[in-house]
């Protein structure tokens, strides 16, 4: 063998300076454009402060702290439990006074005071002024607080045919203020969302899987709100929200299912929410949204 040392030297030099792991191959797990990502957000971060009793308010405008001066919300709601489904329509208009902040005794903001500023009607049906109450916890006790007034309308379908929610259409909004001119505009509504929940596995076997499907539009996003409920309670407790492309299907991440607080809740409520926002340039600091919500309550095996 001729001069093996020369080759060994070259080899050692190669090892010293040349060993770099190639970059990994990047894989996009979901075959979707990068601007339509999934995100997860906790909805009830401070249970020791607020009582999240308002049920589902997926956009979080009302509870605990609305941040807009004017909020107009229209909801077409389906509630399903087993084979039963009930539909209803809900609408409210909230006008807050940001100069009046309501706080707990230790200075935590609960919300802004809201006022009645005139007469509000949806599709020419007048909304009813109702007191707006919230609850918070103070030294372990639940404290009721009045945060003002809200223009509110609700109706279960079947009890009246006055205001079935017109999906993929418009609802007219009219505000007749105490001072000033009337404000009138149409609020477009989204296509109705109808969800389906398939549960497999069991909690005990730690192989629980929850697959969600809905009628997709392939436009924009939908929100999936996961909440817990005890059989003796009416309002579910919202836990987190998953915002996904409106493509019709997703499986809830197994890690989220594994850590669902089944010791606190024996039922899950999964809400499918599709929203359509309207921007009125004449009204500042406002949000106008029409949404379709399908709440499905399931007993977790």
């Amino acid at each position, binding site marked *: 063998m*001729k001069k093996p040392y020369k080759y060994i030297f070259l080899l050692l030099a190669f090892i010293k300076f040349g*060993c770099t792991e*190639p970059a990994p*191959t*990047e*894989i996009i*797990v979901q075959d979707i454009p990068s601007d339509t990502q999934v995100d997860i957000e906790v909805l009830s971060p401070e249970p020791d402060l607020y009582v999240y009793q308002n049920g589902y308010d997926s956009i979080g405008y009302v509870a605990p702290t609305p941040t807009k001066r004017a909020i107009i919300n229209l909801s077409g709601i389906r509630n399903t439990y087993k084979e039963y489904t009930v539909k209803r329509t809900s609408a409210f208009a909230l006008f807050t006074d940001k100069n009046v902040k309501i706080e707990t005794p230790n200075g935590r903001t609960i919300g802004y005071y809201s006022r009645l500023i005139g007469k509000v009607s949806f599709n020419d049906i007048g909304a009813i002024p109702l007191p707006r109450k919230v609850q918070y916890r103070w030294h372990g006790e639940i404290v009721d607080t009045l945060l003002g007034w809200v223009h509110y309308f609700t109706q279960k379908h079947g009890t009246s045919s006055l205001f079935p929610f017109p999906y993929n259409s418009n609802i007219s909004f009219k505000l007749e203020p105490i001072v000033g001119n009337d404000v009138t505009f149409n609020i477009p509504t989204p296509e109705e969302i109808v969800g389906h929940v398939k549960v497999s596995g069991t909690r005990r076997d730690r192989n629980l899987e929850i697959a969600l499907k809905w009628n997709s539009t392939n436009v924009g996003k939908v929100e999936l709100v996961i909440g817990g409920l005890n059989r003796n309670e009416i309002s579910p407790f919202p836990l987190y929200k998953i915002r996904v492309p409106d493509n019709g299907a997703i499986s809830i991440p*197994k890690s989220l299912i594994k*850590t669902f607080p089944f010791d606190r809740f024996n039922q899950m409520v999964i809400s499918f929410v599709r929203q359509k926002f309207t921007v009125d340039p004449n009204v500042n600091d406002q949000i106008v949204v029409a949404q379709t919500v399908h709440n499905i309550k399931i007993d977790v095996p």
Partner: protein
Amino acid sequence: MYLKKQLLILFILLITVTDTFSQQSLDIFGGFSKLITPKFRINSFESNTMNYNKTIDWEFTFSGAVFIAPKTVSDLMMGSVGKSIGNHYLYARYTPGFRKSFLLNTDTLVTISDTVKILNSKLKYSEKFGFGYNYQFSNKFSGGISLRYFEQSYSQDNVYFYFSDSINTLVTITDEYRKEHWRADIGFSYQPIENLLLNVSSYNLFIFAENGEFIDNQNLELKVEKGAIFGIDFEPINSFYLLANLETSGSFIIGSNIRFNIAEGKLGFGLSLFHDKYQEPFIAGFQPSINYSNRSINLNLTAILYSESHEGIMPANDLLNSGIHNITNNQFSYNTINANLNLALNFKPEKNVEFVDVEIINEIFPTFAEEYISIPFAIAKVTNISNSSVVVKPSSFIQAVNDEIIFSPSITIQSGDTTEVQFFTIISESKSDYKKREISQVDFYLSTDYEEYDDEQQKPILINDQNSWDGKVKNLRYFVKSDITQSNKYAKNILSQKKSLFKETPKPLVNFVRTKELFNNFVSNMQYVSDPRASVEYVQFPTQTLKLKGGDCDDLSVAFSSVLESIGIQTAFVDYISTDGISHVNLLVNTKLKPEEVILITKNDKKYMLRKNVKREDEVWIPIEMTSLTNFETSWDIAAQKFYTVAIENYGLSKGSVVIYDIY
């Protein structure tokens, strides 16, 4: 014919295994045939599961790679050591570069206290090390086993929800899963003939010592479907190789190599194409290679280039649906350039046979070119010094007359035996005009299993000039045949002047009359001139005799024989061997007359002889004395009288003192 037979065998084999062949078998060494560089193992488990090799003693291999994309980096791919002990061969390899990793972007954002975290997963596959063993059952048949250890890991960012009286929150935690396993495969190789190697091997035959799993993501584990690889290595012509490996999965790799002698070593080039069932397009990529090897080192440079780019962000479907079946070659592999270095450390004799002696038994007469194809010019005594019988391939190179090394027939020598080995050669027409005699050197080589020669010797040899003759009458025919065009021109010129004569000639007498007319014309212009005194006999080519208008007995016989042969008249030389060593040559001419027609030319039955043709029919041949230079009848009479007296009456033909040599 032999080549056609081999190609037919190859074709049939390819047809019978059309449903097979492979991507498990893409080798980072470059797809060189196992029939070449047997001293170095320029392949590994991928294409050589059975560990077929001809390593002499120790061998060390180091392989590095440059990954061209997405960012050019280099990596140490493999280090291995091989050791042969008798018929056993042991092999071990460490493969730090046999790895593939993935970054799986789930496109899931988690919003926690106004901060956003992207959930990702990382997937890593690696083959850490392996062991091989081969046993040589015979010179033609061997089998072996390979063991390989694999590790895989899958780390996944998961979002967990924590719920308490005081706070609800999302946290991200990276969960990691690992899996290890061993893989064992077997393979066999069979070499029915020297230039054909068949092999069959398994892949993923035994998967054992499995530990761990990718919980909830088993689809991402390395696929270990079982299958088989069928391989063919074929050398249709010297130093040109074809090879194919077919897998039962439907994948295949085919390629060819060619090698040249250069600077005390060999330089080789190769190109392979591969089809992978799990990759697109049909020809997933190709593998050009270059290789240099000498006695101690082997250097290999090969590229693996994919038909479709594997760069950039890839969709998940391929990975999630079919996973990967091979760490070093899959639908996500990057283009690479691999450099391999083999070092051979031999502490054993590098030869099986050696020369005892070489004897030059025939000097070279360039004009007798065909002679040395059937008659050896040298004989060597060769001893087998190995512990088993070996097939010896003798070859030689005569600097003055050969363009390339000429191989002589192989011979099998038993262990410890000494045998005579014959060396033949082919005289190159382009090498020289052979105007003068010279001493040249002959390189004699012996080769067996090793690519390098087991032994070599050099001896001087006399190369005569083109007019030199060894005095053997039978070899005068080479002078006759060497210059037939000019003779034909001469004959046609003479015969064209006698057209009217031939019109009146009966058909059976055509050859006789033509011979007579040509002879009379030939001798009328010729003079008998003896050869100058010299150590070697000198024979003129027919052209020279016709041009010089003279020559000795040999020259005139050769020239007139050439004239007759050029127009289709058969001739033969009659060699009258005398005890004093001085031979005399007459010419025999086939008149094509049947025995019953001989009356047309003579009534004297001593003036002709009957010889059987290829149909076993008698034909009338007449002798001619070329030195009388008088006329045809006289020359015939002189020759006939001598032939009858010496060859017939004195039993010269029976005793062997008279020998007839046909020109063709």
